[in-house]
């Protein structure tokens, strides 16, 4: 990886971010949709905090916020995958492949963009949360930690989205993964404590790496940082990240070998 490669990754990342802002359809799933769902679910199921066994929180919003953030990040990964597939379909990736840059810079550039968008969305949700009454127990360091986790999640989920895009080269296939995002979210503790969920979802949520990641983001909001929670979140992120980046690398290699 040369200095040029690093500059290329930054340039491609900047391009992804600009693209998303220039096309509202790409921005909506990342910001608008999760925000609306957050508002509705918080107000609709808000009395859940009265349930016996619910973790001690100021309000349901404080609990839900992490779920909305991870939902946004997952959708950002999906959007990034769609955008990469569109690049492949329109031949833009050829422009990159014909240039003297490392092959993997193409993927990393896309991931840089997704990570940046995830970071921006994290800031959005923290702001929205604070405005509407959530409070972050761990204060500013807590907020920074949340952003840190969200950005890493962006890389990890972006990797998975990118691998599907590279493997299939089809935007509509990547788009078809949209419902899958929600399945994974439902089978985790994103929206509700897994101890209070119904079986068999509760058991799946207990071991779902996404639950660990969400709890890592949620921890600084509803309590003080617990190192075991932090550790599990990092571990889950490392796992998903490794899978995402690994699959992308394999998919890229396969695409280059069978030729465009």
């Amino acid at each position, binding site marked *: 990886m040369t200095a040029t490669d690093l500059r290329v990754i930054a*340039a491609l990342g900047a391009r992804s971010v600009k*693209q998303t802002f220039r096309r509202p359809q790409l921005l909506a799933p990342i910001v608008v949709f999760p925000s609306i769902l957050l508002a509705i679910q918080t107000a609709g199921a808000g009395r859940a905090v009265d349930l016996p066994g619910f973790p001690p929180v100021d309000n349901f919003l404080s609990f839900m916020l992490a779920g909305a953030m991870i939902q946004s990040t997952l959708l950002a990964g999906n959007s990034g995958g769609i955008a990469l597939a569109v690049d492949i379909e329109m031949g*833009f990736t*050829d*422009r990159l492949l*014909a240039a003297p*840059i490392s092959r993997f810079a193409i993927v990393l550039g896309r991931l840089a963009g997704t990570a940046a968008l995830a970071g921006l969305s994290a800031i959005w949700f923290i702001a929205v949360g604070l405005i509407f009454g959530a409070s972050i127990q761990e204060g500013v360091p807590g907020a920074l930690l949340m952003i840190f986790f969200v950005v890493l999640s962006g890389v990890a989920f972006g990797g998975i989205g990118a691998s599907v895009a590279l493997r299939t080269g089809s935007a509509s296939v990547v788009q078809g993964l949209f419902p899958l995002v929600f399945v994974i979210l439902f089978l985790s503790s994103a929206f509700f404590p897994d101890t209070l969920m119904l079986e068999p979802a509760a058991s799946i949520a207990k071991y779902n790496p996404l639950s660990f990641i969400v709890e890592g983001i949620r921890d600084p909001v509803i309590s003080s940082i617990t190192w075991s929670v932090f550790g599990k979140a990092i571990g889950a992120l490392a796992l998903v990240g490794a899978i995402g980046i690994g699959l992308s690398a394999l998919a890229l290699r396969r695409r280059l070998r069978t030729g465009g």
Partner: protein
Amino acid sequence: MPAIEANELERTFEGGVQAVAGVDLEVADREIYAFLGPNGAGKTTMVRMLTTLLRPTGGSARVAGYDVVTEAASVRRAIGVALQEAALDPLMTGRELIRLQATLHGLARQEGHEKSDALLERVDLVDAADRQVGTYSGGMRRRLDLASALVHEPKVLFLDEPTTGLDPVSRRTIWEEVEQLNREGTTVFLTTQYLEEADQLANRVGIIDDGKLVAEDTPAQLKAQIGHPRLEIRLVEDVAERAREIVVRFGRPLPSKDGAVLVELEGGATGVAPVVRALDEAGLTVESLDLVEPTLDDVFLEKTGHHLEPEEPETGEVE
């Protein structure tokens, strides 16, 4: 050292389709070489192999002295590429795209910006530079594509069907630009399905059909191989017989067509003046005179047994 050389270059796709079936070619430094052939002949596959986007399944090739497989990175540094259907992102502005290309080629920020701005001016896109590419006409997109292929001053430029779908004015602009680039020292390898384009631009033309190179030479030589130009003379009065007697001194007479006297000029177009003078001296008034050259389509037809389609360039998008 040749700018491009290929040795039995071959590409077979999964499913057994042999897009390129063993092509040998050599393009000299500073030459303009055109690959002429119909759709599906293998032109694009050939370009993709030479530009390292596709691995050959047989044979070898070198571009700017580097092997396209083992020294791909070096090849990429030396070439500029403008592919079919201009792979431009409609959401980016022209300036953003060409600057990205500069970054891709490792140009430092300042240098990249300067070169980009200069090229935008060269292809007359300064006014549109900050608009999104999605708003550009076909001609503008091609010019942008061409400009971004030049940002790192490549030694060899690959153009895949550079004027397909463009209106005549845009086409001419691209041609002028390519000729200018060549004068400045760039080797140009282009593919085209338009006879006129190959005829006008290329130093040498390679005719490709069904993955094979069936003929290769300068346009003039290719046409000369097929036949000589013929003169179609229409006279004012019904003096065809007398005209024929005179004209036979200068070339081989051909059967008349629609009352015109036809003669094949073995010496080429230079034979026209003597014929006209002779007719004039004999007091015969010529109504019209047509010099019909064999075309590359005649060459194509002879070599492959079928016409090159389309024969006429389509009038493409107009601004």
